[in-house]
């Protein structure tokens, strides 16, 4: 047996220790399932075996679920055979049902089975535990249990959608599974997911004690008097759970996630069936979910791509790994202080520089505020907080830059100012013992890096490192290279970003880089719609229905209207004759002139009540543009959705055409982490790939004919349409093509 070590003790308890060779964390593969099946068979037939305890031999935890690549690879690539249209689905079912079959085999082996969960148990790991008759969890600081499948476009397909509701009731189970919630030991005990929580190291003993003293080989739901806690779908109380549950699922998902609906279907239908039939229904819905483009794209982006990029997937080959110890941050405003905070959090010493000591101190105070918040929420110990704070050295003295591995310039968005500080900082950076290895990064969001790089004496060491606000929360960093930036510099910048546990994407210099360049058209399209007479409520409601985190108008309020007006006027100035004005930009400028600056002063497209509570659309909006489209049937809603999403996607396609971005994984992950692009799509190019280049071009042409050239597809898309190519096929790195 390769994946489990078994040991029969004097009491006849078979200890099965899950320990996949060569892996740091246990995951379920076909081979591990076969081993588990053999254990179940032995428990059933070996009279010496009185009971089974399952635990993990890994220090990293119990089990992180199924090995997605190995377990699902076949199921979603299954091509249907015209002569046997149901064949692929049947094969998918057989593959998907194997986990259910084996877990059920264990559950019905006739001997009591207890699980000693010594660390995290997620997805298939918790599902295995739920199939055991008794669950002991340790109280380790990293221990958690949960069914997070929904986060990658799936739902629990290893019996979880059937056992959890039968264990803790449909309402609690649906909430846990539809949010993918993780439970800490105490929470898991309170929720009734585990029977017992014990100190680390005592799990196996506690499990054995249960077998010796109480051991019961019949699962709760296999007992004759079993009743679903809270009732099933047609129980008076249970029905309310489903009625409200269906509504909540739509409220939260906007109907964009097939996995959420299939989860609900599996629970609703499964709870009305005998257990062995219920798990078959679950597996069918699981296979059905796998066939959806949303699941395929979400698994690729949220699982494979995020993992790959989190390990530096886009890092140039052949560059030695670096480990920055000290960073100097120029500018201690919101951005600079945020950068200082996340750097210190990763153990990097930070020289936080501003024009005088008071300004630098203010930046450090901002970090202190973030730390206090984390401490008060129990997410950080006061000692650790102090340690982080001690790493941040606020000073006006450029001399302290010397010895840093990296400078990040985050001063006010003004090219001349940036040129001055660049020169001053480089004089100190490229002196001393790090002179030959240090690099210089600029955190501009609006000024081309190539332009700023002109101030640098070492343009090959000059790079853009673009953080998003608020820095402590936003996980994406755009790394912007110019034609002079060296691979070594790029590798060092990525190593820094990876060290602070953010996800880097590599972008070639372009106005607004990648993220903002794709995102700005979303808000601009909102202005188009407004100027065309669409009711503002319609624009923002449909905006949210696309899966974007906010509608375009409320999004502009959040960003701040005065900032948008400033960016617009500077862009117009910089672009000269090439600038195409957006309808509505004058009206927004007028609103700013009238003191409507957005959410920050409580007045923008919406009025924000001072006492809190719901915002409401400003009544003056209809004076700017008369509402001529006050309602929309589903067909028109679909068109508005397309306008809001496709204008972003076509911009991303242009970025590929221009070489601004080159890796579809980075575009997808960047779109989701950078500006919350409709997660159901798996990201901005997965959206196009799912539609298909040919159909996307056709739809863009139709939108362009109706709404203007901004929708006109670039030649790249037309070429891809002709050749039947996808972004992942044409631009994907080999390992990214798996999905």
């Amino acid at each position, binding site marked *: 047996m390769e994946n489990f070590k078994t040991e029969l003790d004097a009491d006849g308890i078979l200890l099965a220790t899950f320990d996949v060779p060569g892996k740091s964390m246990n995951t379920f593969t076909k081979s591990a399932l076969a081993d588990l099946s053999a254990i179940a068979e032995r428990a059933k037939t070996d009279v010496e075996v009185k009971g089974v305890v399952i635990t993990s031999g890994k220090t990293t935890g119990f089990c992180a679920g199924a090995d997605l690549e190995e377990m699902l690879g076949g199921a979603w690539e299954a091509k249907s055979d015209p002569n046997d249209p149901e064949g692929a689905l049947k094969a998918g079912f057989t593959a998907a049902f194997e986990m259910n079959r084996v877990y059920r085999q264990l559950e019905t082996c006739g001997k009591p089975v207890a699980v000693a969960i010594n660390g995290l148990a997620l997805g298939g790991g918790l599902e295995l535990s739920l199939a055991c008759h008794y669950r002991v969890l340790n109280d380790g600081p990293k221990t958690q249990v949960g069914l997070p499948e929904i986060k990658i476009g799936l739902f629990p397909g290893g019996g979880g959608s059937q056992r959890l509701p039968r264990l803790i009731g449909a309402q609690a189970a649906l909430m846990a599974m539809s949010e993918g919630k993780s439970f800490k030991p105490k929470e898991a005990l309170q929720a009734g997911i585990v029977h017992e929580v014990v100190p680390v190291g005592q799990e196996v003993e506690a499990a054995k004690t249960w077998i010796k003293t109480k051991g019961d080989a019949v699962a709760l739901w296999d007992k004759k008097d079993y009743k679903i806690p809270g009732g099933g779908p047609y129980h008076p109380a249970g029905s309310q759970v489903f009625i*409200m549950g*269906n509504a909540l699922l739509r409220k939260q998902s906007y109907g964009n996630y097939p996995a959420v609906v299939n989860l609900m279907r599996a629970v609703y239908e499964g709870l009305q069936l005998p257990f062995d039939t219920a798990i078959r229904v679950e597996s069918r819905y699981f296979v059905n979910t796998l066939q959806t483009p949303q699941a395929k794209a979400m698994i690729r982006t949220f699982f494979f791509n995020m993992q790959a990029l989190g390990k530096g997937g886009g890092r140039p080959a052949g560059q030695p790994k670096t480990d920055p110890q000290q960073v100097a941050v120029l500018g201690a405003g919101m951005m600079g202080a945020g950068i200082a905070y996340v750097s210190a959090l990763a153990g990097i010493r930070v020289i936080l520089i501003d024009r005088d000591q008071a300004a630098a101190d203010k930046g450090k105070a901002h970090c202190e505020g973030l730390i206090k918040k984390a401490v008060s929420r129990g997410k950080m110990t006061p000692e650790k907080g102090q340690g982080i704070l001690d790493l941040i050295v606020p000073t006006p003295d450029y001399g302290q830059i010397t010895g840093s591995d990296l400078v990040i310039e985050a001063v006010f968005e003004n090219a001349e100012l940036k040129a001055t500080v660049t020169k001053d900082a480089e004089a100190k950076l490229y002196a001393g013992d790090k002179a030959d290895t240090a690099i210089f990064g600029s955190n501009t969001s609006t000024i081309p890096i190539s332009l700023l790089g002109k101030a640098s004496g070492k343009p090959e060491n000059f790079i853009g490192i673009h953080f998003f606000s608020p820095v402590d929360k936003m996980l994406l960093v755009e790394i912007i290279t110019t034609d002079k930036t060296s691979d070594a510099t790029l590798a060092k910048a990525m190593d820094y970003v990876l060290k602070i546990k953010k996800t880097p994407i590599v972008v070639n210099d372009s106005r607004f880089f990648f993220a903002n360049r794709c995102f700005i058209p979303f808000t601009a399209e909102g202005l188009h719609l407004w100027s065309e007479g669409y009711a*503002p409520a319609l624009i923002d*409601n449909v905006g949210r229905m696309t899966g974007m985190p906010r509608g375009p108008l409320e999004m502009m309020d959040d960003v701040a209207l005065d900032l948008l007006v400033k960016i617009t006027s500077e862009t117009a100035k910089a672009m000269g004759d090439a600038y195409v004005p957006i309808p509505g930009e004058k009206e927004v400028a007028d609103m700013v002139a009238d003191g409507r600056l957005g959410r920050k002063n409580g007045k923008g497209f919406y009025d924000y009540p001072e006492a809190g509570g719901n915002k409401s659309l400003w009544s003056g909006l209809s004076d700017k543009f008369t509402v001529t489209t006050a309602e929309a049937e589903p067909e028109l809603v679909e068109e508005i959705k397309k306008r809001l999403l496709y204008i972003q996607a076509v911009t991303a396609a242009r970025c590929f055409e221009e070489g601004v971005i080159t890796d579809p994984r980075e575009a997808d992950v960047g779109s989701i982490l950078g500006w919350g692009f409709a997660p159901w799509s798996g990201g901005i190019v997965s959206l196009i790939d799912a539609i298909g280049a040919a159909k996307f071009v056709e739809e863009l042409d139709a939108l362009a004919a109706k709404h203007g050239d901004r929708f006109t597809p670039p030649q790249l898309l037309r070429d891809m349409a002709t050749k039947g190519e996808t972004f992942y096929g044409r631009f994907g790195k080999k390992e990214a093509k798996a999905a």
Partner: protein
Amino acid sequence: MPDLAPGAYIYDAVRTPRGKGKKDGKLHEVTALELSRQVLKGLKDRNNLDTSLVDDVVFGCVTPVGEQGGDIARAAVLAAGYAQTTGGVQINRFCASGLEAINMAAAKVISGEAEMAIGGGVESMSRIPMGSDGGAWAIDVNAAFPSYFVPQGVSADTIATKWGFSRDDVDAYAVESHKRSAQSWADQRFAKSVLAVKDQMGVTLLDRDETIRPNTDMQTLGGLNPSFAMMGEMAFDAVINQRYPELERINHVHTPGNSSAIVDGSAAVLIGSAGSAAKTGLKPRARIKGMASIGSEPSIMLTGPSYVTEKLLKRLGMSVSDIDLYELNEAFASVVLRYMQTLDIPHDKINVCGGAIAMGHPLGATGAMILGTVLDELERTGKQTALVTLCVGGGMATATVIERI
């Protein structure tokens, strides 16, 4: 007697008074079967009816479980001492069940399947709570999700929001409903149809609709809390907002005061062919001129009456102004306000005797009750033609046009 054209004729209509649909309601102690029995027996007795001429009894019942389950129509036929040859069938078109039962009974007569048939319905809402029959529509995600299911009250509030009916508008409508209902009782306009419900000894238990509050006013109604705000806030506003994204938020205006009252009651209408007159010696009171049912957008759910009205009037070659009296079930005030607004029907032509906001809406029976009410009113006022309609769950609606002989 002049020769009657072939068709379906209304020979008589009876109903119980409506009792408050709670444990302290007068009819709570009367079973649904007994309510049905008393109307069927009343219809037989006062017409001296040879029930062997009645081929079928179609009864609406919206919550057909427990004592209302298992085809209560047949049970009632047998309990009422009808000929054993009279069949019974229970149907469910939600709130229009009572009218649909009449339409089906009429269709049986028109097709020649039945010589005579009874359409009617029963609902003891105090004994069998609304919704206790389950049903896939709201509970099974496969029905709820694609139809943007929300409870009817949220739909009614959405109608008010979308077409601009304020809390004052719906409350004012409710005040008028009570005023008209009270006046109708004072004028004895219901005397012809209402059969007092008798208790186990044969003593009158209830002879008046129980929920009318003649003195209700804007102030009293204005003090009531909206009924559907909380459930709307939890999830359902977001659901219907995805179907009607033009609305910034839902204005929750409906309260127990401007929505139909929950009550118990039963009603039955005797339908027969032209030839039934000679066979029974009864005089037909009106002809059923046409019937229709429709489906429309299910989430806003309750705007169907205008569509079914348009469909039926078009088929009959009639216009809105050809109808002398309209009867639209007062499920919620906004439903009637929207109907009047859409079809441009003046308030003095619709629900002239009051309605369900004051007198209650015993789900399965209401359609038959309001058809009887408007027939009485046509006769009282010497008018000719009436249209009866109800909004129905799932976006449906049913309508019937009757015409006095």
